[in-house]
C-alpha cells in the first residue's frame, strides 16, 4: 500500500510548492508550533511551582503533528484528542486564556474548570475533547465521521492517539466499521516511542501500519517532526476523505521531550538522556522549520524571533489572567450532570 515518502524539510529537499506561494500557511504553522511550545513551557512551570493542580502530560516535541494535521482542517472538522492534548487543542484554534483557566480549574475555562488538562474540549473549534482513557476516543471520532456523513455534512474527523493506544481493542473494532462504511475519519497515531515508561517495541508486536492495512485501510507513515511533510500528507488525505475515499491511517514518528507526565523526572531507567538530547538537537520541529523558513526566504530570523517573543508574552499574560480568575461557584458542582432542557 502507498506510503508517503519521508520528506524532510531540513534535508533541503524542495517542498511540493514554492515556499513563497504559501507563506501565509507556513507562518501560521510556525506560529502555532511556537504557541504550543510556549503553552507547555508555562504549564510545566505552573506545575513545578505547585500552582497547577492534578496531573498533566506535555506535548512539547510533537508540535509538528498537531499543527501539520490541524492546518489541513476547517473549524467544522472534528478532532478527538488524548491525555497529552494541549497541542491538539491549540492547533485546532483554542485561546490561551480559556485553556489556562481550564488547567487551573477556573470558571472561565473551556469546561468551566470541570474538565482540566485531561478533558479539555473546545467545541467551538471542533475539538471534541481530550480523553483520559487511552484509546477512549477512537469510537467517538469514528462516530463523528458517521454523523457527518449521515447528516449530509462534509466534515472529516481526525482521531489523535499514541502508539500505546494501539493496544486497545477498541481501535480494531472501529477501524473495521470505518472501513466497511467508508467513513471520513483519519486515525493519526503519534508514535513517540513510548507508552508511559515502556518502549513501543515492547508492547507492540508486528507493524502498526500493517494492522490498519489488514482492515483494508490505506495507511501511511510520515516524519512527525517535519510539519510540511505532515501537512502535505494530511491535506491530501483530508481532501480524499471529504470525497468519501476514507478512512485512512497515519503513523507519525515523533518524540516527547518531557517525562510521561510532568512528575516523571527520573527517567534514565527507561530512556537515556542522550537519546533525549539527540532528538532535541537534531529533530526539533520548530528549530528545523525555522531554518527552512529562513533558507527559503519566507521569513527573516528576527521576524521569527519577534513572533516567538510575542507568543511568549501572550502565554504569560494568559497565565497571569488565569491565576487571578475566579473558581466556579460552589453551586456549579451539581450543574451539568444532566442537560436540563428537554429536546
Amino acid at each position: 500500500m502507498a506510503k508517503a515518502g519521508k520528506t524532510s524539510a531540513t534535508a533541503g529537499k524542495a517542498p511540493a510548492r514554492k515556499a513563497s506561494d504559501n507563506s501565509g500557511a507556513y507562518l501560521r504553522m510556525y506560529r502555532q508550533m511556537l504557541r504550543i511550545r510556549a503553552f507547555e513551557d508555562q504549564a510545566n512551570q505552573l506545575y513545578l511551582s505547585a500552582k497547577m493542580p492534578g496531573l498533566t502530560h506535555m506535548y512539547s516535541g510533537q508540535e509538528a503533528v498537531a499543527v501539520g494535521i490541524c492546518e489541513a482542517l476547517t473549524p467544522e472538522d472534528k478532532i478527538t484528542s488524548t491525555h497529552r492534548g494541549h497541542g491538539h487543542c491549540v492547533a485546532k484554534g483554542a485561546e490561551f486564556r480559556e485553556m489556562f483557566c481550564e488547567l487551573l480549574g477556573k470558571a472561565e475555562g473551556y469546561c468551566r474548570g470541570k474538565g482540566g488538562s485531561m478533558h479539555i474540549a473546545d467545541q467551538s473549534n471542533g475539538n471534541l475533547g481530550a480523553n483520559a482513557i487511552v484509546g477512549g476516543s477512537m469510537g467517538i471520532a469514528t462516530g463523528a465521521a458517521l454523523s457527518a456523513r449521515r447528516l449530509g455534512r462534509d466534515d472529516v474527523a481526525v482521531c489523535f492517539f499514541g502508539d500505546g493506544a494501539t493496544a486497545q481493542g477498541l481501535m480494531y473494532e472501529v477501524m473495521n466499521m470505518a472501513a466497511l462504511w467508508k467513513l471520513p475519519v483519519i486515525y493519526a497515531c503519534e508514535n513517540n516511542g513510548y507508552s508511559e515508561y515502556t518502549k513501543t517495541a515492547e508492547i507492540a508486536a508486528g507493524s502498526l501500519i500493517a494492522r490498519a492495512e489488514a482492515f483494508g485501510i490505506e495507511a501511511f507513515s510520515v516524519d512527525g517532526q517535519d510539519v510540511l511533510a505532515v501537512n502535505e500528507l494530511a491535506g491530501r488525505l483530508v481532501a480524499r476523505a471529504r470525497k468519501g475515499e476514507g478512512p485512512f491511517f497515519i503513523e507519525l514518528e515523533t518524540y516527547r521531550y518531557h517525562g510521561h507526565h510532568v512528575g516523571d523526572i527520573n527517567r534514565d531507567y527507561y530512556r537515556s538522556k542522550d537519546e533525549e538530547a539527540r532528538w532535541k538537537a537534531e529533530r526539533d520541529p520548530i528549530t528545523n522549520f525555522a531554518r527552512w523558513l529562513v533558507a527559503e526566504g519566507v521569513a527573516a530570523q528576527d521576524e521569527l524571533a519577534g513572533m516567538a517573543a510575542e507568543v511568549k508574552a501572550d502565554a504569560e499574560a494568559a497565565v497571569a489572567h488565569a491565576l487571578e480568575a475566579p473558581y466556579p461557584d460552589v453551586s456549579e458542582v451539581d450543574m451539568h450532570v444532566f442537560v436540563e432542557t428537554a429536546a
Partner: protein
Amino acid sequence: MREITLSKAVNEAIAEEMRRDPTIFLIGEDVAEAGTPFKVLSGLVEEFGTERVIDTPISEPGFMGVAVGAAMTGSRPIVDLMFGDFLFLVMDQLCNQAAKTHYMSGGKLKVPLVLRTNLGATRRSAAQHSQSLHALVAHIPGLKVAMPSSAYEAKGLMKTAIRDDNPVVIFEDKLMYQEKAPVPEEEYLIPFGQANVVREGRDLTMVATSSMVQVALAAAHALEGEGISVEVIDPRTIVPLDEATILNSVRKTSRAMVIDEGHQSYGITGEIASRIGEKAFYHLDAPVVRMGAMDVPVPFSPALEDLTVPTPEGVAEKARKMLRGELFDGA
C-alpha cells in the same frame, strides 16, 4: 383500546420518532433485515433504509463508542444491545464517556443517545444471557435509567428517552416482548421521574420494577382475597427516581416492600429501601422488606433457575408474614 405487544410498542415508538426527526438512527447487531433476534425492530429498515438502521459487526464497545461520537455531533443514535449481559462490554464507553461528557465539558457538549437493552431470567439462557444489570448503570451519574413494565409503558418511555438530551439506558423485559397491553393509537409520552401508582391500597406498599410489577400485581391480587390491601408502585425510571410518590404511599400504608429482578445485594432494592427508611422512618410499622434475585449467577437448569427470582407466591408469602409481624429478623 387496541392491544399490542411490547415488541410492537417499542417498534412503533422508534418508528414514530424516526419519522419526526431525521437525526435519529438505529445501530446494533442484526437490527436491519433480521430486526434483532427478538424481531422487535422488524420492518424499520424497509421504511428507513440501511443508512438509518445500521447493522454492525459484533463489536459492542466499538459501536457504543461510535454512537457516543455521533451523539456529540448532531445525531441522536439509538443503540441496540442484544442482551443486557453485554453491558459489561460497553461500560467504558457508556460510563467513562457518554455519562460524563456533558459534565466534563462544563455543559458544552451533550450526548443524546438511547441504549436499549433487556433484562430478565427464567428463559433457560444461563448465566451470560439472563442478567438484570440496571443497578450498575443507575449508580453512574449522568445516565438516566428507564424500566418499562408493559407495552404501554415501553412505548411512552421509549419516546421520552429518544427526546431526552442525555444518555438514557432503557431495559426491556425479554419475557414480555410477546405480551399485549392496551396502547392508544394517539401519540403519548411518559415523563421521566414520575412513578405510576399501578394499584391503590391501604395496608402495604409494593415498589416494583419492570418484570416485577406483574409479580407484585399478582401477589396483590392474591392478598386481596385475604383482606390485605396492597398499593403497587412502578417507579418507571430509577434515575431520576420519583421519591415523593413512593414516600407518600408508604406514609399512608406504613409498610413497604421493594421488588426487583436484579441481584438483591448491592442492587437497587437497597437504594429504594434505604430512602424509605430514611425519609418515612416514623411512619414505618415494620422494616422495609426487599426482594431481589438471589445472589447467584443465573443457573441453566430449569430446576434451579426458577428459584432465583421473586415469584407472586413468594412475594405474597413475605407480605403475609410482614402483616403478621413475623419478619423482624433478629430485631
